[in-house]
């Protein structure tokens, strides 16, 4: 039976990505770093002695640290993987040829995005065995791990889409890269800063809804609020809004991702 090929851009990108030795060495280095972190954490908690013990609450702390680390990794790697997806093709003079094929703009953009994200998801999956160490000591439920991973995937999708969008609308990879990192830094740090400023001002004016929105868009705060109901409760009490920040995060990041993708698809074949 003559079936139409499955997204060829995706398959080609995956082939090129996983053929590259650098991809595997970067995964290996990350896993080594994470392992060293966990070993150091255990040593620190047990006082560097064999007679030391590890409590479930400390297991949760390890889980929280790993979650923040993984989120940091996503914010660091997603722009690098996606911000050059289209602009590199343009710089290497392969884009024009690709655009004259019968692939639609959506197929090309989604293929590029999925290939970049697939690599990041492979890294995340590769860390699962290390992550599962926390189960040995209790204090963390599997549903928490699943929820955090879903949050990671949403963040990867949103930031990856932003990267692809800048890669499409800017001519140079370096410009696209800087802009995407700018967006990542904004969400990682500035949302938290704006939250603090908003809380200080809001306590006087009583307007805390804006602060709530800022903290709900901060990936670290939301990830921690997913694994710790206390943090979610703290945010609610501070901002006087009872809705979990996770929902704002899901809606906000889904919207950012979809809007960025739509812009990228529309602008890919801008023929002026």
């Amino acid at each position, binding site marked *: 039976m003559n079936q139409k090929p499955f997204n*060829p851009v995706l398959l080609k990108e995956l*082939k090129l990505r996983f053929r590259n030795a650098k991809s595997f060495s970067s995964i290996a280095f990350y896993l080594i770093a994470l392992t060293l972190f966990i070993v150091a954490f255990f040593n620190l908690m047990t006082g560097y002695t064999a007679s030391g013990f590890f409590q479930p609450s400390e297991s949760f702390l390890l889980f929280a640290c790993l979650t923040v680390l993984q989120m940091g990794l996503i914010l660091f790697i997603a722009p690098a993987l996606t911000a050059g997806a289209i602009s590199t093709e343009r710089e290497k*003079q392969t884009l024009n040829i690709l655009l004259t*094929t019968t692939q639609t703009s959506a197929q090309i953009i989604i293929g590029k995005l999925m290939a970049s994200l697939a690599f990041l998801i492979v890294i995340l999956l590769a860390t699962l065995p290390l992550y599962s160490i926390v189960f040995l000591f209790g204090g963390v439920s599997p549903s928490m791990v699943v929820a955090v991973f879903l949050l990671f995937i949403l963040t990867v999708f949103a930031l990856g889409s932003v990267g692809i969008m800048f890669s499409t609308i800017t001519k140079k990879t370096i410009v696209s890269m800087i802009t995407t990192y700018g967006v990542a830094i904004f969400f990682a740090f500035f949302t938290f800063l704006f939250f603090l400023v908003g809380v200080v001002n809001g306590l006087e004016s009583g307007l805390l809804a804006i602060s709530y929105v800022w903290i709900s868009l901060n990936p670290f705060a939301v990830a921690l609020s997913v694994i710790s109901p206390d943090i979610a409760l703290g945010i609610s009490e501070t901002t006087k809004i009872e809705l979990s920040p996770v929902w704002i995060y899901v809606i906000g990041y889904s919207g950012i991702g979809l809007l960025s993708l739509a812009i990228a698809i529309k602008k890919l074949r801008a023929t002026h």
Partner: protein
Amino acid sequence: MIEFQQLTKNYGQLKALNELSLTIKKGTIFGFVGANGAGKSTAFSILATLLSPTSGDILVNGKSVVQNPHEVRAQIGYMPDFFGVYDQLKAEEYLDFYGAAYGMPAKLRQQKITDLLALVRLTDKRDQYVDDLSRGMKQRLCLARTLMHDPDILILDEPASGLDPRARVEMRDILKDLKGLGKTILISSHILPELAEICDEIGVLDSGKLIASGNILEIQAQLQGDKFITVKVLGDVNVAQQFFLQQQVEHIEKNDFENSVTFVFNGDDVMQANLLKAAIDAGIQVTAFEVEDKNLEDVFMVITEEVAKHESKTV
């Protein structure tokens, strides 16, 4: 059939294409001739659906590049003047990717790859990484890529640019083979004699305007009115020079080393024969009477010079 309809493309104040109208019949090998910046690549980019025209349109077998770009893409194979390749793919994988990008089923792609690698003389490079191929080989591989989905129309923008003489000859031979496949081919090249060998028709572009188009032989014949004639003589070449100065010839030049005179003669074959007879009757001992045919480069130079003269008069 390809119909350029009043095609205009402006970049700010610059008119890259100025109301280009042209019809290219199915199966024709059409050469675009023009200096750098004449508008060849712009016309090709619009035809390849990479650029939008400011006004006008191109119809490819009745489908508009503006209204139906997806349908047009399925009918064309485009080779730009500058292009990159995916270095980490093997030659076979490179062609397979583009075949898939045109929606070809896997089984069909494998057979097509075998045929095309044979056509471009790269069968033995099938499993070699594209990065390891020479410039000429990459150019031929790119040509094979344009043929993967068996398009009716090939758009080849300077396919021999940057190639050494041997690679040029190989590319020209492949293009001659393509001529036999019945494809409509649009080609541009700076090496005009190459175009003359391959093309059925040419269009001369100058500053975005089509200033001449048609069958190469017809255009050459139209311009044969002005011929370069070299007459070699025995004895004093100055006597011959004086004689021809009194005839209806222009731009006479003497070559003492070859004992010859060269001039531009505007006349038909009968007048040419009469001129030779008159020279012999005048006692000039003619050892050679050579008429130089105009090649495509001469045609291009004559046409563009005439346009320049006309424009300077208008100004």
